[in-house]
């Protein structure tokens, strides 16, 4: 059986070598230990000796780069059969691993030892929009639902530190009693402390967010004669259902929203999103705080369906049994303080929605009708719009649609 001559590994780390030339030809006799071929490695060109004696039956690789371990020739007895050897395929050199990028900008920071540096950082260091706050302060703000952007930092270089977060939480006036580094502690005793519930924190956070949006309000009054009649009739027919003005408002607003989709919108940094369907949120005063359960696709629902959904949502809201899906996806909010003798008020946007309607009490007012004085049940609506997403004209058109829908409910069908 012929002996295979393999390309030897001559050093740790050697993976291939280049055969420069053969020192024996096919058919020649070789002795074990005689130089057989010249091999070029990274370091040196050297002769490789034959490991067996016999006749060099076949040279399988005449020259070129060969991986270690590959058969390059056969030595055996004269006339012996020699197996075929596949042409050495240039093995793909494994790609060098891409160097790990120092994606961390801190690694590219100045090499100057910060220990010895006493100077302040360059002015405008915060210009990239990053807020300077200690990790502790960040965590506290996060846990308490406070916006770092709204907190004033008193640490070095204006950094927000824990104490600042505590102060912000306490209302920013007196220093919090727990911080021993400041003045004498505020005496406790008469002030009741209400710990923040998660709901409260969320409300605060979202409203603070909303407060920063540029808004404008439009006000209109609607004659509710027809709505009142509608509601009375529906109650007569189906007492258990207990349809309310809110349900009518929901339906009318939904109808107006799908006709004026610029208002059924949401502002993002990249685009204004126009939602296809009116998911109207109803603001409910629950014991745990203000919550806004959503009636989805209100434009497609009948008043009866709206009333049923609304009843269920409000009941569950009052029992604190709302689920996430009840609160998600709202595109517009309806806030009704009519039951409290409020004439009109302005609501704060419910982010990320582009509009919210604040509805007061329906009250008898003296209004001119056809040139004559009349007494009609009037409702004042004030709609707040996100001016980034909605301009005056489309906003006004929407409001007119709502008013018309209330004064002539058939129009909302």
């Amino acid at each position, binding site marked *: 059986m012929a002996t295979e001559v*393999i390309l*030897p*590994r001559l*050093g*740790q780390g050697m993976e291939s070598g280049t055969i420069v030339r053969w020192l024996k030809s096919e058919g020649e006799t070789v002795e074990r230990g005689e130089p057989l071929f010249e091999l070029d490695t990274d370091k040196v060109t050297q002769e490789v000796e034959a*490991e067996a004696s016999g006749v060099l039956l076949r040279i399988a690789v005449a020259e070129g780069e060969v991986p270690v371990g590959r058969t390059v020739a056969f030595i055996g007895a004269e006339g012996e059969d020699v197996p075929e050897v596949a042409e050495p395929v240039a093995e793909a050199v494994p790609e060098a691993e891409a160097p790990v990028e120092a994606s961390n900008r801190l690694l590219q920071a100045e090499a100057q030892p910060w220990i010895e540096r006493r100077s302040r950082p360059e002015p405008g260091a915060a210009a990239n929009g990053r807020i300077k706050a200690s990790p502790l302060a960040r965590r506290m703000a996060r846990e308490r639902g406070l916006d770092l952007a709204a907190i004033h930092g008193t640490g070095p270089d204006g950094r927000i530190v824990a104490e600042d977060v505590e102060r912000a939480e306490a209302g920013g006036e007196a220093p919090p009693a727990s911080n021993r580094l400041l003045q004498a502690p505020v005496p406790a005793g008469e002030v009741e402390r209400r710990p923040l519930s998660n709901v409260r924190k969320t409300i605060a956070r979202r409203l603070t967010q909303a407060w920063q949006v540029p808004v404008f309000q439009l006000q209109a009054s609607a004659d509710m004669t027809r709505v009142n009649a509608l509601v009375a009739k529906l109650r007569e027919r189906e007492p258990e259902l207990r349809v309310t003005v809110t349900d009518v408002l929901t339906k009318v607003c939904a109808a107006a929203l799908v006709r004026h989709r610029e208002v059924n919108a949401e502002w993002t940094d990249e685009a204004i999103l126009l939602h296809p369907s009116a998911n109207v949120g109803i603001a409910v005063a629950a014991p745990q705080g203000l919550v806004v359960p959503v009636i989805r696709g209100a434009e497609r629902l009948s008043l009866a369906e709206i009333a049923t959904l609304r009843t269920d949502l409000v009941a569950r809201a009052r029992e604190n049994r709302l689920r996430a899906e009840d609160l998600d996806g709202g595109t517009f909010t309806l806030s009704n303080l009519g039951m409290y003798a409020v004439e009109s008020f302005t609501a704060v946007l419910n982010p990320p929605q582009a509009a919210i309607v604040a509805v007061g009490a329906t009250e008898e007012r003296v209004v001119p009708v056809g040139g004559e004085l009349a007494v009609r049940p009037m409702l004042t609506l004030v709609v707040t719009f996100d001016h980034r997403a909605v301009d005056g004209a489309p906003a006004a058109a929407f409001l007119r649609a709502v008013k018309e829908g209330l004064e002539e409910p058939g129009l909302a069908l």
Partner: protein
Amino acid sequence: MTVAKVEHRSSLAKGELGDVLREMLLIRRFEEKVEERFRAGDLPGFLHVAIGQEACAVGVCRALEDGDVIASTHRAHGHTLAKGTHPNELMAELYGKQEGCSHGYGGSMHLYDVERGNMGANAVVGGGLPQITGAALAFQLRGEPRVAVAFFGDGATNIGTFHEALNLAQLWQVPAVFVLEDNKWAESTPEWQHSPIRDLSDRAKAFGMKTLKTDGQDVEAVYKTARKALDHARGGNGPVFVHLETVRFSGHYIGDPQVYRDRGEARELSETRDPIELLREKIGVSGEDFAELDAEVTEIVEASVGFAKGATDPAPEDALKNVYA
């Protein structure tokens, strides 16, 4: 560890020589197999074989008594086998397996077999020497009749640890034997280029240490000289420097093209100074008998490769064990 006092003769008995030949041949075939396996790509790391230096390892180790310890160099396979480690465990270690004598943690240059008195091979030239002084000190403090033996090459006689270790050993008169395997090469540098003096025994004499010198290719001479040295040290008479003149047939490491060495010279030495051939001739082993012996040891060596290949790879997480006691 047992410290039995076996009555050893001061020279090898005629009847023992067959065994001695077998041992040296086993080392030779083992080293050749290691070279072959390395070239085939089986073995990771650095490997240094001691082909040509078998008589030094066997001659000295045979002279040791139970309880004596050795420390070796980067060229440690011969010493390790001669000290009693089974070829299976050694080969398994070269393959990086758990069943290896260092359980895969050491490799060729860190072969330990503490049960058999092998305190470890060292990859730092001269690294083990002061520790042999220390081991001998421990034997002295405890009053034990044991000797600590260090193997090293001519290159090591230049490094600081060599001088400090011998100086201290001689000062404290500890039972140590320092065995110089002088093959006249420090990696690629010939002795005349690395040492300003020609006779390296002078270095030990400079410390006032007793020195013995002999032909490292004559295993009987090596044994006799080692016995003398060990008896001297064991008797509380202080350390001994044993200078063995030997020959390294192969390169410094496997794959070393020895561009620095005259090919003809190397070949001639391998023909005239082969310790195995020399012993074989001396005791008159026939071609047949030798072939039989050869087949026997070759089988053992082949079996060790089979054993090693089938042995267990350590788990990657094992890398975190044994850092601390």
